[in-house]
Protein backbone atom coordinates (compact mmCIF):
# COMPACT_ATOMS: atom_id res chain seq x y z
CA UNK A 1 0.00 0.00 0.00
CA UNK A 2 1.11 3.53 -0.80
CA UNK A 3 2.15 5.54 2.24
CA UNK A 4 0.64 9.01 2.71
CA UNK A 5 4.05 10.51 1.86
CA UNK A 6 4.16 8.62 -1.45
CA UNK A 7 0.74 9.94 -2.54
CA UNK A 8 1.71 13.57 -1.89
CA UNK A 9 -0.67 13.77 1.07
CA UNK A 10 1.77 13.63 3.99
CA UNK A 11 -0.57 15.21 6.56
CA UNK A 12 -3.07 12.72 7.95
CA UNK A 13 -5.55 12.58 10.79
CA UNK A 14 -7.92 9.82 11.87
CA UNK A 15 -10.99 10.64 13.94
CA UNK A 16 -13.05 8.06 15.79
CA UNK A 17 -16.46 9.37 16.83
CA UNK A 18 -18.37 7.04 19.16
CA UNK A 19 -22.19 6.93 18.91
CA UNK A 20 -24.71 5.41 21.37
CA UNK A 21 -25.75 2.78 18.80
CA UNK A 22 -25.12 1.59 15.26
CA UNK A 23 -28.27 3.23 13.89
CA UNK A 24 -27.08 6.72 14.81
CA UNK A 25 -23.54 5.98 13.59
CA UNK A 26 -24.99 4.90 10.25
CA UNK A 27 -27.21 8.00 10.00
CA UNK A 28 -24.17 10.24 10.60
CA UNK A 29 -22.17 8.33 8.00
CA UNK A 30 -24.88 8.67 5.34
CA UNK A 31 -25.59 12.34 6.09
CA UNK A 32 -21.93 13.39 6.08
CA UNK A 33 -20.39 11.41 3.24
CA UNK A 34 -22.52 12.92 0.44
CA UNK A 35 -20.76 16.26 0.05
CA UNK A 36 -17.37 15.96 -1.61
CA UNK A 37 -14.28 17.65 -0.22
CA UNK A 38 -14.00 20.90 -2.15
CA UNK A 39 -10.20 20.92 -2.35
CA UNK A 40 -8.30 18.47 -4.59
CA UNK A 41 -5.53 18.66 -1.99
CA UNK A 42 -7.61 16.85 0.64
CA UNK A 43 -8.98 13.31 0.65
CA UNK A 44 -11.42 11.92 3.16
CA UNK A 45 -12.75 8.46 3.85
CA UNK A 46 -15.72 7.80 6.10
CA UNK A 47 -16.79 4.45 7.48
CA UNK A 48 -18.39 2.91 10.52
CA UNK A 49 -16.37 0.48 12.60
CA UNK A 50 -16.96 -1.53 15.77
CA UNK A 51 -15.50 -0.35 19.06
CA UNK A 52 -12.75 -2.54 20.53
CA UNK A 53 -14.17 -5.81 21.75
CA UNK A 54 -17.64 -5.11 20.32
CA UNK A 55 -19.43 -6.26 17.17
CA UNK A 56 -21.88 -3.41 16.54
CA UNK A 57 -20.55 -0.69 14.24
CA UNK A 58 -21.11 2.23 16.59
CA UNK A 59 -18.02 4.29 15.76
CA UNK A 60 -17.81 6.75 12.87
CA UNK A 61 -14.26 6.68 11.52
CA UNK A 62 -12.99 9.56 9.42
CA UNK A 63 -9.58 9.42 7.79
CA UNK A 64 -8.31 12.72 6.45
CA UNK A 65 -5.22 13.11 4.28
CA UNK A 66 -4.04 16.45 2.99
CA UNK A 67 -1.13 18.04 1.14
CA UNK A 68 -0.41 20.55 3.91
CA UNK A 69 -1.26 20.88 7.58
CA UNK A 70 -3.16 24.04 6.79
CA UNK A 71 -5.44 22.23 4.32
CA UNK A 72 -5.94 19.47 6.86
CA UNK A 73 -6.92 21.93 9.59
CA UNK A 74 -9.43 23.74 7.37
CA UNK A 75 -11.04 20.49 6.20
CA UNK A 76 -11.24 18.96 9.69
CA UNK A 77 -12.65 22.14 11.23
CA UNK A 78 -15.35 22.24 8.60
CA UNK A 79 -16.12 18.57 9.23
CA UNK A 80 -16.53 19.27 12.96
CA UNK A 81 -19.01 22.07 12.17
CA UNK A 82 -21.11 19.63 10.13
CA UNK A 83 -20.79 16.87 12.69
CA UNK A 84 -21.98 19.19 15.47
CA UNK A 85 -25.11 19.96 13.44
CA UNK A 86 -25.83 16.27 12.86
CA UNK A 87 -25.42 15.56 16.59
CA UNK A 88 -27.72 18.44 17.54
CA UNK A 89 -30.42 17.22 15.12
CA UNK A 90 -30.08 13.71 16.61
CA UNK A 91 -30.33 15.01 20.19
CA UNK A 92 -33.30 17.30 19.62
CA UNK A 93 -35.25 15.95 16.64
CA UNK A 94 -35.01 12.16 16.70
CA UNK A 95 -38.37 10.38 16.60
CA UNK A 96 -38.45 9.37 20.29
CA UNK A 97 -37.40 12.86 21.45
CA UNK A 98 -40.14 14.58 19.45
CA UNK A 99 -42.80 12.05 20.46
CA UNK A 100 -41.91 12.50 24.12
CA UNK A 101 -42.08 16.28 23.73
CA UNK A 102 -45.45 16.13 21.92
CA UNK A 103 -46.85 13.82 24.60
CA UNK A 104 -45.67 16.18 27.31
CA UNK A 105 -47.24 19.17 25.54
CA UNK A 106 -50.57 17.35 25.38
CA UNK A 107 -50.62 16.61 29.10
CA UNK A 108 -49.60 20.10 30.20
Amino acid at each position, binding site marked *: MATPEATGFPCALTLNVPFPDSRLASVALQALRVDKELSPLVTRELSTVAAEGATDQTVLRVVYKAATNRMLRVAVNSFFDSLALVLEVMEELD*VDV*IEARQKQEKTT
Partner: protein
Amino acid sequence: MTVDITSKPRRIALGCEGSANKLGIGVILHEGTPGTPSERITVLSNIRHTFVSPPGTGFLPKDTARHHRSYFVRLAKQALAAANVTIDEIDCICYTKGPGMGAPLTSVAIAARTLALLWGKDLVGVNHCVGHIEMGRAITGAAHPVVLYVSGGNTQVIAYAEQRYRIFGETLDIAVGNCLDRFARALAISNDPAPGYNIEQMAKKGKVLLDLPYAVKGMDCSFSGILTRVEEMAALLKKGELKGPEGEEVTAEDLCFTLQETVFAMLVEITERAMAHVGSNQVLIVGGVGCNERLQEMMGAMARDRGGSVYATDERFCIDNGIMIAHAGLLAYETGFKTPIEESTCTQRFRTDEVLVKWRK
Protein backbone atom coordinates in the same frame (compact mmCIF):
# COMPACT_ATOMS: atom_id res chain seq x y z
CA MET B 1 -43.38 3.91 2.79
CA THR B 2 -44.88 1.40 0.37
CA VAL B 3 -48.14 3.39 0.40
CA ASP B 4 -48.93 4.91 -3.00
CA ILE B 5 -48.54 8.64 -2.40
CA THR B 6 -51.09 9.65 -5.05
CA SER B 7 -53.85 7.64 -3.39
CA LYS B 8 -53.29 9.23 0.01
CA PRO B 9 -56.01 11.79 0.78
CA ARG B 10 -53.67 13.90 2.94
CA ARG B 11 -50.04 14.46 2.01
CA ILE B 12 -47.62 16.46 4.15
CA ALA B 13 -44.10 17.68 3.43
CA LEU B 14 -41.52 19.52 5.51
CA GLY B 15 -39.35 21.96 3.54
CA CYS B 16 -35.92 23.36 4.45
CA GLU B 17 -34.51 26.41 2.67
CA GLY B 18 -31.14 28.06 3.19
CA SER B 19 -29.68 29.09 -0.17
CA ALA B 20 -28.94 32.66 0.92
CA ASN B 21 -29.21 34.60 4.19
CA LYS B 22 -32.65 33.31 5.19
CA LEU B 23 -33.16 30.00 6.92
CA GLY B 24 -36.73 28.83 6.42
CA ILE B 25 -38.59 25.71 7.56
CA GLY B 26 -42.21 25.09 6.64
CA VAL B 27 -44.83 22.35 6.64
CA ILE B 28 -47.40 22.05 3.84
CA LEU B 29 -50.53 19.95 3.41
CA HIS B 30 -51.95 18.80 0.06
CA GLU B 31 -55.44 17.27 -0.05
CA GLY B 32 -57.47 15.81 -2.93
CA THR B 33 -56.20 14.21 -6.15
CA PRO B 34 -52.73 15.51 -7.19
CA GLY B 35 -52.63 17.53 -10.41
CA THR B 36 -56.39 18.19 -10.47
CA PRO B 37 -58.36 21.32 -9.56
CA SER B 38 -59.64 19.41 -6.52
CA GLU B 39 -56.16 19.53 -4.96
CA ARG B 40 -56.26 21.80 -1.90
CA ILE B 41 -53.13 23.36 -0.46
CA THR B 42 -52.79 24.46 3.16
CA VAL B 43 -49.79 26.11 4.78
CA LEU B 44 -49.44 24.46 8.19
CA SER B 45 -46.40 26.45 9.27
CA ASN B 46 -43.86 28.81 7.75
CA ILE B 47 -40.99 29.85 10.03
CA ARG B 48 -38.04 31.99 8.96
CA HIS B 49 -34.96 33.53 10.52
CA THR B 50 -32.74 35.97 8.65
CA PHE B 51 -29.02 36.51 9.05
CA VAL B 52 -28.64 40.29 9.08
CA SER B 53 -25.14 41.71 8.56
CA PRO B 54 -24.10 45.17 9.83
CA PRO B 55 -24.76 48.25 7.59
CA GLY B 56 -22.18 48.62 4.84
CA THR B 57 -21.49 44.90 4.67
CA GLY B 58 -22.97 41.91 2.86
CA PHE B 59 -23.50 38.37 4.11
CA LEU B 60 -20.55 36.05 3.59
CA PRO B 61 -21.03 32.31 2.90
CA LYS B 62 -19.10 31.17 5.99
CA ASP B 63 -21.03 33.38 8.44
CA THR B 64 -24.35 32.58 6.78
CA ALA B 65 -23.72 28.84 6.98
CA ARG B 66 -22.87 29.23 10.68
CA HIS B 67 -26.15 31.10 11.18
CA HIS B 68 -28.15 28.34 9.48
CA ARG B 69 -26.44 25.60 11.51
CA SER B 70 -27.10 27.35 14.79
CA TYR B 71 -30.79 28.08 14.07
CA PHE B 72 -31.82 24.89 12.28
CA VAL B 73 -32.99 22.86 15.28
CA ARG B 74 -34.77 25.83 16.87
CA LEU B 75 -36.70 26.57 13.65
CA ALA B 76 -37.53 22.93 12.99
CA LYS B 77 -39.04 22.62 16.49
CA GLN B 78 -41.09 25.80 15.96
CA ALA B 79 -42.28 24.65 12.52
CA LEU B 80 -43.38 21.24 13.88
CA ALA B 81 -45.12 22.76 16.89
CA ALA B 82 -46.93 25.38 14.79
CA ALA B 83 -48.03 22.78 12.23
CA ASN B 84 -49.21 20.45 14.98
CA VAL B 85 -48.31 17.31 13.03
CA THR B 86 -46.75 14.05 14.16
CA ILE B 87 -43.73 12.55 12.40
CA ASP B 88 -45.95 9.71 11.19
CA GLU B 89 -48.09 12.12 9.18
CA ILE B 90 -45.13 13.59 7.26
CA ASP B 91 -44.50 12.00 3.85
CA CYS B 92 -41.23 13.57 2.75
CA ILE B 93 -38.46 16.02 3.64
CA CYS B 94 -37.68 18.62 0.97
CA TYR B 95 -34.49 20.68 0.78
CA THR B 96 -33.05 23.28 -1.58
CA LYS B 97 -30.59 21.63 -3.95
CA GLY B 98 -29.67 24.94 -5.61
CA PRO B 99 -29.02 27.49 -6.95
CA GLY B 100 -27.50 29.49 -4.12
CA MET B 101 -24.41 29.91 -1.96
CA GLY B 102 -22.53 26.65 -1.47
CA ALA B 103 -21.79 26.62 2.24
CA PRO B 104 -25.29 27.68 3.43
CA LEU B 105 -26.93 25.21 1.01
CA THR B 106 -24.75 22.36 2.27
CA SER B 107 -25.34 23.11 5.93
CA VAL B 108 -29.12 22.86 5.47
CA ALA B 109 -28.81 19.78 3.24
CA ILE B 110 -26.84 17.97 5.98
CA ALA B 111 -29.58 18.69 8.52
CA ALA B 112 -32.34 17.69 6.05
CA ARG B 113 -30.56 14.40 5.29
CA THR B 114 -30.18 13.66 8.99
CA LEU B 115 -33.90 14.29 9.55
CA ALA B 116 -34.91 12.08 6.60
CA LEU B 117 -32.68 9.26 7.86
CA LEU B 118 -33.79 9.53 11.50
CA TRP B 119 -37.48 9.69 10.59
CA GLY B 120 -37.29 7.11 7.76
CA LYS B 121 -38.70 9.54 5.18
CA ASP B 122 -37.91 10.09 1.51
CA LEU B 123 -35.81 13.10 0.61
CA VAL B 124 -36.68 15.47 -2.25
CA GLY B 125 -34.17 17.95 -3.71
CA VAL B 126 -35.85 21.12 -4.99
CA ASN B 127 -34.79 23.84 -7.43
CA HIS B 128 -35.08 27.12 -5.53
CA CYS B 129 -36.50 29.06 -8.52
CA VAL B 130 -39.16 26.43 -9.19
CA GLY B 131 -40.05 26.68 -5.49
CA HIS B 132 -40.70 30.41 -5.88
CA ILE B 133 -42.79 29.92 -9.03
CA GLU B 134 -44.96 27.11 -7.66
CA MET B 135 -45.59 28.93 -4.37
CA GLY B 136 -46.55 32.10 -6.26
CA ARG B 137 -48.96 30.15 -8.46
CA ALA B 138 -50.50 28.37 -5.48
CA ILE B 139 -51.03 31.54 -3.43
CA THR B 140 -52.27 33.84 -6.21
CA GLY B 141 -54.14 31.30 -8.32
CA ALA B 142 -52.47 32.60 -11.50
CA ALA B 143 -52.94 29.71 -13.92
CA HIS B 144 -50.64 30.47 -16.83
CA PRO B 145 -48.63 33.61 -16.07
CA VAL B 146 -45.40 35.05 -17.36
CA VAL B 147 -43.20 34.92 -14.28
CA LEU B 148 -40.78 37.64 -13.25
CA TYR B 149 -38.39 36.13 -10.72
CA VAL B 150 -36.41 38.90 -9.02
CA SER B 151 -34.23 38.45 -5.95
CA GLY B 152 -30.76 39.06 -4.56
CA GLY B 153 -29.30 36.24 -6.62
CA ASN B 154 -31.61 35.85 -9.60
CA THR B 155 -33.31 37.94 -12.28
CA GLN B 156 -35.27 35.94 -14.86
CA VAL B 157 -38.37 36.29 -17.03
CA ILE B 158 -39.93 32.83 -17.29
CA ALA B 159 -42.83 31.25 -19.15
CA TYR B 160 -44.05 27.67 -18.94
CA ALA B 161 -44.07 25.51 -22.06
CA GLU B 162 -44.03 21.72 -22.46
CA GLN B 163 -43.06 20.72 -18.92
CA ARG B 164 -40.26 23.24 -18.50
CA TYR B 165 -40.09 26.70 -17.03
CA ARG B 166 -38.35 28.37 -19.97
CA ILE B 167 -36.15 31.39 -19.42
CA PHE B 168 -37.12 34.14 -21.87
CA GLY B 169 -34.81 36.78 -20.53
CA GLU B 170 -32.40 37.19 -17.66
CA THR B 171 -29.66 39.37 -16.26
CA LEU B 172 -26.36 39.23 -18.10
CA ASP B 173 -24.35 39.96 -14.95
CA ILE B 174 -25.61 40.62 -11.39
CA ALA B 175 -29.15 40.18 -10.10
CA VAL B 176 -31.35 43.23 -9.62
CA GLY B 177 -31.52 42.54 -5.87
CA ASN B 178 -27.75 42.35 -5.71
CA CYS B 179 -27.58 45.77 -7.40
CA LEU B 180 -29.96 47.18 -4.75
CA ASP B 181 -28.18 45.43 -1.83
CA ARG B 182 -24.76 46.70 -2.88
CA PHE B 183 -26.08 50.22 -3.44
CA ALA B 184 -27.42 50.06 0.13
CA ARG B 185 -23.90 49.20 1.29
CA ALA B 186 -22.49 52.27 -0.49
CA LEU B 187 -24.80 54.50 1.57
CA ALA B 188 -24.55 52.26 4.69
CA ILE B 189 -28.33 51.77 4.64
CA SER B 190 -29.42 49.22 7.27
CA ASN B 191 -29.78 45.54 6.26
CA ASP B 192 -32.55 45.12 8.84
CA PRO B 193 -35.10 43.79 7.92
CA ALA B 194 -33.70 43.92 4.37
CA PRO B 195 -31.71 46.51 2.42
CA GLY B 196 -34.30 46.50 -0.40
CA TYR B 197 -37.10 47.27 2.04
CA ASN B 198 -35.23 50.26 3.45
CA ILE B 199 -34.40 51.56 -0.05
CA GLU B 200 -38.11 51.28 -0.89
CA GLN B 201 -39.12 53.35 2.14
CA MET B 202 -36.49 56.02 1.38
CA ALA B 203 -37.46 56.12 -2.31
CA LYS B 204 -41.00 57.13 -1.33
CA LYS B 205 -39.52 60.45 -0.14
CA GLY B 206 -37.38 60.93 -3.28
CA LYS B 207 -38.38 63.60 -5.83
CA VAL B 208 -35.44 64.25 -8.15
CA LEU B 209 -34.94 61.74 -10.96
CA LEU B 210 -31.30 61.65 -11.99
CA ASP B 211 -29.80 60.17 -15.13
CA LEU B 212 -28.64 56.55 -14.91
CA PRO B 213 -27.67 54.15 -17.70
CA TYR B 214 -30.60 52.09 -19.00
CA ALA B 215 -29.38 48.63 -19.98
CA VAL B 216 -31.96 46.44 -21.69
CA LYS B 217 -30.41 44.22 -24.33
CA GLY B 218 -33.11 42.41 -26.26
CA MET B 219 -34.81 40.10 -23.77
CA ASP B 220 -31.98 40.47 -21.26
CA CYS B 221 -30.75 43.23 -19.01
CA SER B 222 -27.61 44.27 -17.21
CA PHE B 223 -27.24 45.86 -13.79
CA SER B 224 -23.50 45.98 -13.05
CA GLY B 225 -22.88 49.18 -15.02
CA ILE B 226 -25.82 50.85 -13.32
CA LEU B 227 -24.41 49.81 -9.94
CA THR B 228 -21.00 51.31 -10.79
CA ARG B 229 -22.60 54.61 -11.79
CA VAL B 230 -24.90 54.80 -8.77
CA GLU B 231 -21.96 53.97 -6.46
CA GLU B 232 -20.05 56.88 -8.03
CA MET B 233 -23.06 59.10 -7.41
CA ALA B 234 -23.29 57.88 -3.80
CA ALA B 235 -19.64 58.85 -3.28
CA LEU B 236 -20.33 62.33 -4.74
CA LEU B 237 -23.40 62.63 -2.53
CA LYS B 238 -21.32 61.94 0.58
CA LYS B 239 -18.94 64.74 -0.43
CA GLY B 240 -21.91 67.05 -1.04
CA GLU B 241 -20.99 67.39 -4.72
CA LEU B 242 -24.00 65.68 -6.31
CA LYS B 243 -26.42 68.09 -7.98
CA GLY B 244 -29.70 67.57 -9.83
CA PRO B 245 -30.34 68.39 -13.52
CA GLU B 246 -31.18 71.99 -12.57
CA GLY B 247 -28.37 72.31 -10.06
CA GLU B 248 -30.67 71.56 -7.12
CA GLU B 249 -29.75 69.75 -3.90
CA VAL B 250 -29.95 65.95 -4.11
CA THR B 251 -30.58 63.62 -1.16
CA ALA B 252 -29.98 59.91 -0.49
CA GLU B 253 -33.74 59.50 -0.89
CA ASP B 254 -33.53 60.92 -4.42
CA LEU B 255 -30.79 58.43 -5.26
CA CYS B 256 -32.92 55.51 -3.96
CA PHE B 257 -35.86 56.80 -6.03
CA THR B 258 -33.70 57.15 -9.15
CA LEU B 259 -32.25 53.66 -8.88
CA GLN B 260 -35.62 52.00 -8.28
CA GLU B 261 -37.35 53.83 -11.14
CA THR B 262 -34.57 52.94 -13.58
CA VAL B 263 -34.12 49.24 -12.81
CA PHE B 264 -37.84 48.58 -12.38
CA ALA B 265 -38.58 50.23 -15.76
CA MET B 266 -36.10 47.79 -17.31
CA LEU B 267 -37.82 44.84 -15.65
CA VAL B 268 -41.25 46.01 -16.80
CA GLU B 269 -39.95 46.34 -20.38
CA ILE B 270 -38.55 42.80 -20.64
CA THR B 271 -41.61 41.34 -18.91
CA GLU B 272 -43.93 43.11 -21.36
CA ARG B 273 -41.94 41.77 -24.29
CA ALA B 274 -42.20 38.20 -22.94
CA MET B 275 -45.98 38.64 -22.49
CA ALA B 276 -46.30 39.73 -26.12
CA HIS B 277 -44.27 36.67 -27.18
CA VAL B 278 -46.36 34.08 -25.36
CA GLY B 279 -49.71 35.89 -25.65
CA SER B 280 -50.32 35.95 -21.90
CA ASN B 281 -51.78 38.89 -19.98
CA GLN B 282 -50.98 37.61 -16.49
CA VAL B 283 -47.74 38.51 -14.73
CA LEU B 284 -46.65 36.74 -11.58
CA ILE B 285 -43.87 38.44 -9.61
CA VAL B 286 -41.88 36.19 -7.26
CA GLY B 287 -38.62 36.50 -5.31
CA GLY B 288 -37.53 38.90 -2.58
CA VAL B 289 -37.58 42.03 -4.79
CA GLY B 290 -41.13 41.02 -5.77
CA CYS B 291 -42.54 42.34 -2.49
CA ASN B 292 -41.48 45.87 -3.49
CA GLU B 293 -44.78 47.72 -3.89
CA ARG B 294 -43.38 50.23 -6.36
CA LEU B 295 -42.36 47.38 -8.69
CA GLN B 296 -45.83 45.83 -8.30
CA GLU B 297 -47.41 49.22 -9.07
CA MET B 298 -45.34 49.79 -12.24
CA MET B 299 -45.95 46.22 -13.41
CA GLY B 300 -49.67 46.63 -12.68
CA ALA B 301 -49.88 49.75 -14.86
CA MET B 302 -48.24 47.89 -17.76
CA ALA B 303 -50.46 44.81 -17.33
CA ARG B 304 -53.62 46.94 -17.17
CA ASP B 305 -52.70 48.58 -20.48
CA ARG B 306 -52.58 45.11 -21.98
CA GLY B 307 -55.93 44.17 -20.46
CA GLY B 308 -54.35 41.90 -17.87
CA SER B 309 -53.30 41.92 -14.26
CA VAL B 310 -50.35 41.40 -11.98
CA TYR B 311 -50.17 38.71 -9.30
CA ALA B 312 -47.85 39.11 -6.36
CA THR B 313 -47.54 37.77 -2.83
CA ASP B 314 -46.46 39.41 0.40
CA GLU B 315 -43.19 38.95 2.24
CA ARG B 316 -44.23 35.61 3.81
CA PHE B 317 -44.07 33.91 0.42
CA CYS B 318 -42.02 36.33 -1.74
CA ILE B 319 -38.92 36.32 0.41
CA ASP B 320 -37.13 32.96 0.61
CA ASN B 321 -39.04 30.51 2.79
CA GLY B 322 -39.26 26.84 3.66
CA ILE B 323 -42.87 26.43 2.65
CA MET B 324 -42.18 26.97 -1.06
CA ILE B 325 -39.56 24.22 -0.95
CA ALA B 326 -42.03 21.92 0.83
CA HIS B 327 -44.74 22.74 -1.74
CA ALA B 328 -42.62 22.33 -4.91
CA GLY B 329 -40.99 19.23 -3.41
CA LEU B 330 -44.35 17.66 -2.61
CA LEU B 331 -45.63 18.38 -6.15
CA ALA B 332 -42.63 16.48 -7.53
CA TYR B 333 -42.95 13.73 -4.91
CA GLU B 334 -46.58 13.17 -5.94
CA THR B 335 -45.32 12.34 -9.45
CA GLY B 336 -42.93 9.74 -7.99
CA PHE B 337 -39.79 11.91 -7.81
CA LYS B 338 -37.36 11.43 -4.94
CA THR B 339 -33.68 12.11 -4.30
CA PRO B 340 -31.66 9.15 -2.96
CA ILE B 341 -29.57 10.15 0.08
CA GLU B 342 -26.29 9.35 -1.67
CA GLU B 343 -27.26 11.71 -4.54
CA SER B 344 -28.56 14.49 -2.29
CA THR B 345 -25.80 16.97 -3.10
CA CYS B 346 -26.13 20.73 -3.51
CA THR B 347 -25.18 22.77 -6.51
CA GLN B 348 -24.52 26.51 -6.69
CA ARG B 349 -25.64 26.57 -10.34
CA PHE B 350 -28.96 24.93 -11.14
CA ARG B 351 -30.94 26.58 -13.93
CA THR B 352 -34.71 26.85 -13.77
CA ASP B 353 -35.15 25.09 -17.14
CA GLU B 354 -33.19 22.00 -16.02
CA VAL B 355 -36.18 20.77 -14.01
CA LEU B 356 -38.73 18.49 -15.69
CA VAL B 357 -42.07 19.87 -14.51
CA LYS B 358 -43.89 16.55 -14.49
CA TRP B 359 -46.80 17.83 -12.38
CA ARG B 360 -48.06 20.24 -15.07
CA LYS B 361 -49.68 19.39 -18.40
